[in-house]
């Protein structure tokens, strides 16, 4: 950095993303509180530990290969050529946005005076990875082994969500070009994908003991500490705000970027390099949260668990197009997402005997899927990318946003990169006898021995006379 303006812009951008990372850490704190609040007393510590250990596992694997996947896979490979080098192969050449720079032994993956941005950008994406894995974590509480969850967390956090981000959340992604896919704040790339993955795992893992009666009727195993659930969800809302900011480029001159001769146009943009404003997305975030809460309160008949979860589902459903929606559209879309998520949750539970302990598949998977489809209708015809204005490799442009493309995109997220990999990996782990804890342990409680040891310690202290 040799000139003051360049230095200020660089440091501002570095600091901007750094703040979003800190805010997004609250998402994980919230998920931990939420899961402990939703689990039963005898499983608390294991539940917390399981979700905590995804942090180092996903972080280390994100460093080793997750980040590289994001930069290498936008072309598929083989599905659409890159606009940078016109090749449909993995992007590993010398171009500026190549995966070549993000192999773990790259000098840029460290303290490097020539690069002030890569690390915070890496961390922002990593926090999304934790969220993806944490979504799965809630659904499978009280019966999965920590080993199996660790493998599944790495799979969704450092592999499958990363592939979907490369495909549909990268300016060069093939889904933008061929499908007109648009998912500004990740209805699909995080939520539908992780929700679908969780559903695939649950189909193999099976329900908690006692969840269904012998006649197949579902029983409610409600949250044991609704207040912890409440505070957890408030923290997730807060962190989600940081996530919204992290999905933007805070300051960018679109004139030269779009090839507009002599035009200077500084603005914030979304991840597709199309213009938006922090002002607008702030209104949309809050209005979709409000729509979700309003709908959740009514459809859940005042049930606090569903009301708070619905606030999240409302944001998730509107997120695909919250860079452009009117706030009232965001609110209505949030409400629609909640109704779909709630109805689907109970239908799937009864029909397929799926025990989604915290409603994660509903709140993230179904609401996210619905949000993508709705976005296809509401933003029909809008450019899916800032590069829609320029010619592609064959003279065509990126496909515009459209209902069919968004529906196919939703299937790619939920089914192809979510449900199918989750189901297959869970099947393999099940085949190895490593997926589920023994029945006796599930009944006794995963924390049985820890609690027993604590009781002995307590006895020793209580009987001490000195």
């Amino acid at each position, binding site marked *: 950095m040799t000139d003051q303006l360049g230095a200020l812009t660089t440091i501002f951008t570095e600091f901007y993303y750094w703040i979003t990372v800190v805010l997004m850490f609250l998402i994980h704190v919230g998920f931990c509180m939420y899961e402990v609040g939703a689990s039963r007393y005898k499983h608390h510590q294991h539940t917390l530990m399981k979700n905590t250990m995804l942090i180092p596992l996903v972080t280390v694997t994100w460093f080793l290969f997750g980040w590289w996947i994001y930069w290498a896979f936008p072309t598929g490979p083989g599905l659409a050529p890159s606009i940078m080098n016109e090749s449909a192969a993995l992007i590993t050449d010398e171009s500026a946005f190549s995966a070549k720079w993000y192999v773990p032994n790259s000098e840029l993956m460290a303290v490097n005076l020539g690069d002030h941005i890569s690390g915070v950008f890496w961390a922002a994406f990593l926090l999304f990875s934790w969220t993806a894995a944490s979504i799965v974590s809630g659904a499978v509480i009280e019966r999965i082994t920590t080993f199996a969850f660790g493998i599944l967390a790495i799979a969704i956090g450092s592999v499958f969500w990363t592939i979907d981000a490369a495909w549909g959340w990268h300016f060069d992604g093939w889904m933008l070009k061929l499908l007109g896919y648009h998912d500004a704040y990740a209805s699909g790339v995080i939520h539908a994908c992780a929700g679908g993955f969780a559903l695939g795992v649950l189909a193999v893992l099976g329900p908690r003991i006692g969840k269904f009666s012998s006649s197949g009727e579902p029983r409610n195993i409600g949250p044991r500490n609704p207040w912890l659930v409440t505070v957890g969800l408030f923290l997730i809302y807060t962190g989600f705000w940081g996530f919204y900011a992290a999905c933007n480029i805070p300051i960018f001159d679109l004139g030269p970027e779009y090839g507009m001769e002599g035009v200077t146009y500084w603005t914030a943009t979304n991840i597709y390099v199309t213009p938006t404003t922090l002002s607008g997305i702030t209104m949309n975030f809050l209005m979709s949260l409000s729509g979700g809460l309003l709908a959740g309160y009514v459809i859940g008949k005042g049930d606090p668990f569903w009301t708070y979860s619905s606030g999240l589902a409302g944001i998730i459903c509107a997120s695909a197009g919250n860079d452009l929606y009117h706030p009232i559209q965001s609110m209505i879309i949030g409400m629609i997402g909640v109704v779909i998520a709630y109805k689907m949750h109970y239908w799937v539970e009864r029909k397929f005997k799926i025990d989604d302990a915290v409603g994660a598949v509903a709140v993230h998977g179904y609401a996210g899927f619905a949000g993508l489809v709705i976005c296809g209708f509401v933003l029909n015809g809008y450019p899916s990318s800032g590069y829609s204005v320029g010619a592609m490799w064959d003279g065509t442009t990126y496909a515009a946003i459209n209902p069919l493309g968004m529906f196919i995109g939703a299937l790619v997220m939920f089914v192809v990169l979510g449900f199918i990999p989750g189901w297959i990996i869970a099947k393999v782990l099940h085949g190895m006898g490593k997926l589920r804890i023994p029945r*006796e342990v599930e009944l006794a409680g995963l924390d049985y021995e820890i609690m027993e040891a604590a009781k002995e310690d307590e006895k020793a202290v209580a009987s001490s006379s000195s």
Partner: protein
Amino acid sequence: MAVTNWVDHLSAKEVAGAVYPGVGTEGVLVLIAFVIWIGWHVISAKQESDKLSKLAKRRPGSNAWKNNVTDG
């Protein structure tokens, strides 16, 4: 190469960006990270498996945990 003098380092004709100790040994560090990562899974999986088997053999009842509740 380690940095021993920032003035010399930053006033060089071409400033080297990488300033961490052991520049050039990144490949070895990555290899070590892989070993730690996989090794962690192997060790923790065995620990968990042993713990679960031991508790399963004891077969505590589904309400036995209540006897272990401490009030702090």
